[in-house]
């Protein structure tokens, strides 16, 4: 029987990895991800999970080990954050085209310099194009559920792609929340054993990771891209099955009070909970404001997003990343491209907020909405604005 428990989200995430019966877990500590792998090593040490926990010497090695173990046919999980994710960077590009369904949790954190252990989305945004499926969790329950979904989808033979579930560092990873932990029998029904198309096995030798000469490289990269795009069907199916077994429904894009809304906040991750409170207060004050939350970031759910924004006139996009010298924040830029030349498309502004653990309060969201509405009338010089900068 599934049961509701009050638990730190990192612990629940680790328990979910055990429920998913991960087999190899190469891991390296980094705040704020550490509780996940600490708890996993404990679960393995206590014999509650039959797995190999590899305490590697770096995150680059963690991802390298993960490639090896996934290629050898084992269900593979790891978790990291920030500097660790950056150190992995070179290897993050391999499991996609090599079709290795590694599942990873990233506890999102700022990037140095200056070094910061606190939350934003810069670590994952600079890894945007690694070719993994990527989702963002809003709360603890969702972190657990999206993780189970990640195993279900990544290893599906129609997909065979790596999968990242993003959870906000500290604001999600370290909070204690009531979470319904599914029971083992349900999870086993949801996630079948891992049966890859190919694996490293002397009984049936294959060569993996060969040289891509110019005659094949484009096709290889394109095949990966097509697979990533096509995975959306299975991602949706995975959520449908999830609802059938566990009773909780997820969609690529969620909406909150968007009916008749003229201005929409667009968010990703746990910040959305504060945004909802802000929307409620603004609605009470008679403002036609709603919220659109992107849960599936890669492959980007274009049609779902277009449907979600309805006839809104203005989008106030929250970017938790400041790409120096760029035209706009990454989420803002994505949505501008998506909606460019779409008849009746809303005006889009990117608000860089919540960097390095800076709180984004209800009042900040109100300020953002006000500014977006103002800029919709009078085009600003820049397409983005950094919110909440201290003057002294």
């Amino acid at each position, binding site marked *: 029987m599934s049961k509701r428990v009050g638990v730190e989200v990192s612990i629940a995430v680790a328990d979910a990895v055990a429920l998913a019966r991960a087999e190899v877990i190469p891991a390296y500590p980094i705040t704020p991800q550490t509780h996940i792998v600490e708890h996993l090593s404990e679960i393995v040490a206590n014999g509650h999970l039959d797995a190999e926990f590899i305490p590697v010497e770096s995150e680059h090695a963690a991802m390298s080990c993960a490639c090896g173990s996934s290629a050898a046919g084992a269900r593979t999980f790891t978790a990291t954050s920030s500097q660790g994710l950056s150190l992995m960077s070179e290897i993050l590009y391999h499991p996609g085209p090599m079709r290795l369904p590694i599942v990873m949790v990233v506890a999102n954190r700022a990037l140095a310099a200056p070094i910061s252990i606190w939350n934003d989305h810069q670590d994952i945004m600079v890894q945007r194009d690694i070719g993994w499926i990527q989702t963002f969790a809003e709360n603890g329950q969702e972190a657990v559920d999206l993780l189970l979904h990640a195993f279900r989808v990544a290893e599906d033979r129609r997909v065979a792609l790596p999968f990242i579930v993003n959870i906000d560092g500290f604001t999600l990873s370290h909070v204690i929340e009531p979470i319904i932990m599914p029971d083992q029998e349900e999870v086993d029904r949801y996630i079948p054993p891992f049966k890859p198309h190919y694996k*490293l096995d002397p009984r049936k030798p294959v060569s993996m990771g060969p040289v891509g000469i110019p005659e094949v490289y484009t096709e290889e990269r394109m095949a990966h891209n097509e697979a990533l795009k096509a995975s959306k069907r299975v991602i949706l199916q995975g959520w449908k099955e999830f609802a059938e077994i566990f009773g909780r429904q997820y969609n690529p894009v969620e909406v909150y009070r968007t009916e008749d809304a003229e201005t929409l906040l667009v968010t990703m991750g746990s910040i959305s909970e504060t945004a909802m409170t802000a929307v409620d207060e603004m609605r009470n004050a008679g403002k036609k404001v709603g919220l659109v939350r992107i849960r599936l970031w890669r492959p980007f759910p274009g049609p779902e997003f277009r449907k979600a924004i309805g006839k809104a006139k203005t989008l106030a996009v929250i970017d938790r990343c400041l790409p120096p010298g760029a035209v706009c924040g990454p989420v803002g830029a994505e949505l501008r491209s998506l909606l460019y030349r779409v008849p009746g498309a809303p005006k889009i502004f990117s608000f860089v907020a919540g960097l390095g653990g800076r709180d984004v309060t209800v009042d900040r969201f109100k300020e953002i909405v006000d500014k977006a509405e103002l800029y919709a009338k009078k085009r600003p010089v820049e397409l983005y604005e950094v919110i909440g900068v201290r003057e002294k």
Partner: protein
Amino acid sequence: MIPELEKFVGFSAKNLPKDEPLASGHRACQGCGEVLALRMVMKALGRDVIVCNATGCMEIVTSPFPQTAWNVPWIHIAFENAASVASGVEAARKVLARKGKIPKKHVDILAVGGDGATGDIGLQWISGAMERGHDFLYVCLDNEAYMNTGVQRSGCTPYGAMTTTSPPGSQSFGQVTWKKNVPAIMAAHGIKYVATASPAYYLDLMNKVKKAAMVKGPAYVHIYSPCPTGWGSAGERSIEIARLVVETKVFPLYEVIDGKYIMSRKITKPKPVTEYLKTQRRFRHLKEEQINYIQARVDAEYEKLLKLSEM
């Protein structure tokens, strides 16, 4: 003696395996001593093996998709991380065998890389894998430079050698540092088996690889690998050069079994290093002063090694 090696039966000229886990028809240069060494490694290991290859000449020449020279399972991820990939493969097989998902039968896991992949960029990854004690063997194919990228110096490039990043000039005589002692670094991990080998002594090479595979836990074999393209040597002389390097004491053959150094071949009547140096254009610019230094240092290093083996 370690228990795993008690049942060791060596290869001889009569029982050499005919099978080629690494097929011919790959794209290595003519006379490549590195691919020859790799072929011997694979003959020694047979087909019950999984190969994790670092980026470098051997990876490139054996795998241009859709062709492959590999008759055994093979994976390449990146330059520095073959030992980590091997760690992952080993861990996966352990848990899958325990769960009854694959046969319990032992499969050797080979991580293989060049001197650059091993002694320079990949040192941390190998050290991690050695320290954690994964059951695998690591083979370094040492052609004494980054050949795949066009003959740049590495930590294993010998003193005085000309490479594209250690060119001799009015202010330089080529590589200014002595060759890094990578086998000693590996032995310092306290692993059960470390050895050096040369393809000129092919039975010795194959036996060492076989022992490294039989040992439980990590093992390391460092193989001298002539590269005619990078060294400016004649392709047909690769084996001769691989013998001269041993006869001049420049590259001694030994094992370190459970911490004990054992000379595989004591050189009692060494040839002068000049005989070795003059076979390769990379040493052509060296003056008497440098050659004398090389001779003295080679003698001294060899003495140190002998002392270790007498301990």
